[in-house]
């Protein structure tokens, strides 16, 4: 257990700002283990940026770094993202 860990839900405001819609109920599929789950329920680590990890296998799903003038998003660990709306 890591005391610094949060839930994807904690990034709801930033995700909404980036994607323009509510993202914590979107369903992501991990490219590592294939498990699908709501973005709000994945594990979130906050440092210089945000790292979203699969709660099942620990694979990094997504990384976000916010700079002064731009936002950088890495989706490498996500196989699919299903938005409901």
């Amino acid at each position, binding site marked *: *257990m*890591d*005391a*610094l*860990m*949060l*839930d*994807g*839900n*904690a990034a*709801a*405001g930033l995700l*909404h*700002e980036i994607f*323009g*819609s*509510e993202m*914590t*109920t979107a369903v992501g599929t991990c490219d590592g283990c294939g498990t699908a*789950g*709501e*973005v*709000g*329920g994945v594990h979130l680590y*906050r440092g210089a940026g945000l790292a979203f990890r699969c709660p099942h296998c620990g694979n990094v799903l997504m990384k976000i770094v916010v700079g002064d003038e731009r936002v950088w998003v890495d989706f490498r660990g996500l196989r699919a993202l299903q938005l*409901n*709306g």
Partner: protein
Amino acid sequence: MEGTAVLGRLNWRAAKVVELTPETSQTKTITFDVPGWPGHRAGQHVDVRLTADDGYQAERSYSIASAADGPRIDLTVERLDDGEVSPYLTDELRTGDVIELRGPVGGYFVWNPQAEGTVFLVGGGSGVVPLMAMARQRALERSGIPTRLLYSARSWDDVIYRDELAELTARRDGFDVVYTLTRAQPAGWDGYSRRVDTDMLGEVGPVSSELAVAFVCGPTPFVEAVASGLVELGHEPARIKTERFGPTGG
């Protein structure tokens, strides 16, 4: 679609302080008037942004404590002594002050019981705040959904919303509260007096076939212990919704 918040751009809004209510020695409820507030669902949070004179900005997330009620929202903030934002909110803010917030955000941890059965709320410390919003929303809607709150606090004086929780329980409409006081107990206390563990969850919570959904909120180690305890008791992980407070919540 039901289950998601209103789509669209998320703007920072000016929120005016209209009331300050001390709850415990470390917590205060701040009532804001937010013109244009789109409404919210119980369990959602807002991001609060403070800007210093030199332009430095600090941002934190706080759970909404109130049920949806027009343009007003309540945030209950715990003062963290070494925090950057919470001491300002609890000590410096005055009625009439205006701060920036955006929201509501987070459609994941919201009161939206769809399955049959009992809703199990488990809160540690100020983790009770979004769960209180759910209890208030439930009461407002006159919902009869069986709901039990297991609330872990350090002492009786650290219990937030104590009187209101007693009132909600007295309605006898299917809502009740079980307390555990982990550090100090009043004389004659006959409730739990230890940290939440798997045995306690088994005694207080519904059996797995009767659980609609569990909402767990508190510091990360608390949430971790409760969530793994619930899984150990046979509850489906998909029915356990968690909201962890990080160490930088201040």
